[in-house]
């Protein structure tokens, strides 16, 4: 099997799984309990959170564990909208966002918020001039992902922050960092809110993070909060939290090496695949882990299933919206259907080997020529 769909999800690292199992066995207590089993769990909770805070260069109190990035995104966006509706009902986002952002925005527009989409330039970056024009006195929130999951476009968060500060410093800046974590550097100091997911960095599914700047107040979605979970409530999912913390540490330790490995593989892929009549959509502004291309003459879905018969796994757009036309590619290609309906995403990992890449290229060429012939 050759798995090249690491941006959809990743296999759990053995070292991380080991933490999960050990913590499950060794820490039966509820971190909210005041007895010693509880305090033992709480201590681990604190240490696990502190470790992340140290790596992210933020305060531990600014980190809220959630069930994943979708919950983080929803909590951040709804939380700001409901808290600050009296100050303004204008929100800005982009077409580069994940469904959990876009559909939350859709819901908010249905109840009276006004949502604007910032234009995307042909190189995949958001149009900063347009953004500056969009920001108004009554704008309360801007939500732009740091790395787009489908094509891999990176956004200049620091510059975006400068644009906000220049036009209306009260605008709250949220960024979905799901595809940035473990793939590129980021600075939380540029942001007010940020979302993360564990299962994209070789940790188990079912846990994510919301970073919320310490002095920022937003509404909570869940009532019945506790001292340990003052924002989100619930019993801290200690095995998940500890393994997430470990995965973040491991990802941070090997970030630069991993980037180099993926760059090498991506270059090999581009070198060989661009000989075919396809359009490479990812560019030099993308993270090296994601390669998006349009097959032009072959529908993405057909191609993905054909590769699957060869025991190779990639995806069409993103796992969460696999069967739809790509909104982003539609946007950057001026509505060229051939590009936006035939795209596939190959996502690589530091676990990917050169043998896998070579084998993949061979199979790709084979399937491509077979399908083209039909």
């Amino acid at each position: 099997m050759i798995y090249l769909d690491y941006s959809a999800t990743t296999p759990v690292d053995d070292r991380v799984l080991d933490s999960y199992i050990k913590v499950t066995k060794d820490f039966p207590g509820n971190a909210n309990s005041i007895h010693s089993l509880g305090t033992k769990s709480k201590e681990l909770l604190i240490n696990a959170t502190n470790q992340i805070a140290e790596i992210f260069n933020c305060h531990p109190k600014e980190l809220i564990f959630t069930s994943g990035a979708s919950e983080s995104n929803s909590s951040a966006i709804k939380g700001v909208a409901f808290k600050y509706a009296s100050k303004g009902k204008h929100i800005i986002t982009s077409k580069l966002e994940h469904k959990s952002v876009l559909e939350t925005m859709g819901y908010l527009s249905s109840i009276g918020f006004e949502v604007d989409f910032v234009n995307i330039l042909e190189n995949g970056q958001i149009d900063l001039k347009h953004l500056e024009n969009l920001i108004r006195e009554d704008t309360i929130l801007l939500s732009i992902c740091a790395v787009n999951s489908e094509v891999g476009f990176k956004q200049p968060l620091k510059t975006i922050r400068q644009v906000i500060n220049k036009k209306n410093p009260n605008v709250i800046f949220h960024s979905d960092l799901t595809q940035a974590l473990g793939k590129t550097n980021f600075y939380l100091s540029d942001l007010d809110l940020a979302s993360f997911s564990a299962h994209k960095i070789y940790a188990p599914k079912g846990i994510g993070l919301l970073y919320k700047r310490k002095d920022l107040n937003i509404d909570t979605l869940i009532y019945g909060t506790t001292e340990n979970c003052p924002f989100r409530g619930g019993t801290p999912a200690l095995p998940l939290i500890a393994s997430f913390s470990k995965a973040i540490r491991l990802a941070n330790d090997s970030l630069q090496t991993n980037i180099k490995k993926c760059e090498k593989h991506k270059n090999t892929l581009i070198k060989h695949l661009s000989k075919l009549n396809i359009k490479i959509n990812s560019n030099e502004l993308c993270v090296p882990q994601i390669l998006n291309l349009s097959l032009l003459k072959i529908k993405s879905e057909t191609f993905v299933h054909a590769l699957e018969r060869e025991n190779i796994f990639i995806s069409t757009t993103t796992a969460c919206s696999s069967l739809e036309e790509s909104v982003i590619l539609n946007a950057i290609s001026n509505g060229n259907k051939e590009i936006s309906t035939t795209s596939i995403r190959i996502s690589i990992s530091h676990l990917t080997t050169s043998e896998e890449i070579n084998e993949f290229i061979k199979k790709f060429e084979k399937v491509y020529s077979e399908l083209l012939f039909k």
Partner: protein
Amino acid sequence: MKKVILIKYGELTTKKGNRNFFINTLKKNIESKLLGYEITIENDYYRMFINAKEEDIHNIIEILKNIYGIYEIVVAYMINNKNINVILDSSLEVIKQNDFKTFKVVTNRSDKSFEIHSMDLSQMVGGHILKNIKNINVDVHNPDVILNIEIRKDNVYLSTSGIKGLGGYPVGTLGKALLMLSGGIDSPVAGYLTLKRGVKLDYIYFESRPHTSIEARNKVIELAKKLEKYSFKGKLYIVNFTKIQETIYKNLDETYLITIMRRMMYKIAHSKAKSIKALALVNGESIGQVASQTLSSMLAVNEVTNFPVLRPLCSFDKQEIIEISKKIDTYETSILPYEDCCTVFVPKHPIINPSLKTIYEEESKIDFDHLIIEALETIEEIDLSKENKHNEEYL
């Protein structure tokens, strides 16, 4: 020109015979706080020079700002050439980095073999600066900028403004004391002020589980660690105080509960201090702040020890204490709302003027010596430098 950090000593100048000991301790302290940085330190009787990578200098200065025994931290430019023209041009380059209207040049010539006398050199450099920068004047009384030139055996150092250091004596030069750390706002500040006079600290905390929680303990560990930013290799001793406290509570006159409890704490602290060769006890008492901090209460409690009990905050107002605790970043931790053993059992009307006669009568009802020995034997020791990483095997 190479950037180096120049350190001017604090009150060390007054310590004639011990001066080398003070300087060496300061050097050792600096080295231990700068572990991980590639540095070399040179020093003489008047100055210390730290050579570091230029990109580290900013971070190093931030660390030096928290080390006692430093009067001033100066970023100086070193030239290893005593040619007068080089000195003139370099001086001009260094002073140009400042925005000023008036200046003065001060030369210090510790290398007496250098042929130009200090006053003459100052004049030459001043003249050169006046010639090359427009619209400026010399002002020897109140200049905007002072250019310091130090002619030393091997090198010449040029510098303008410096950053004020913490002052005080290098920690460790004047012995060790045991700080009674409660978890409140005052005791960390008392510790900080004691460190200033070169006294190294170990810490003692009285814990009364289950009446106090692990959170209260962690809070104290956190506070001790924050103080360690200014100190070195301190140890935290945690006393299991439950039995003594419960015994007092169950058997003795309620109004004397706090007085006797504190006497027991002092007895234990005294014995521990003695065994670790500490020479004094330190606490955060401020006269009159609470019933147990009246002079007559202090008298009654102090009676159990012949060690000096340092109370650096005795004359401070609460607001003044809070200001310092904010400055040293202990305030936020101190105000976390966990019960400590002084707040667990609080009598409705604690005695304000305790009488020793009653104290003796009350204390004679219980075999406290036995309980104290037990408490001393079960003291837990926490190495603060190692307390940083926890649960490593899971994370």
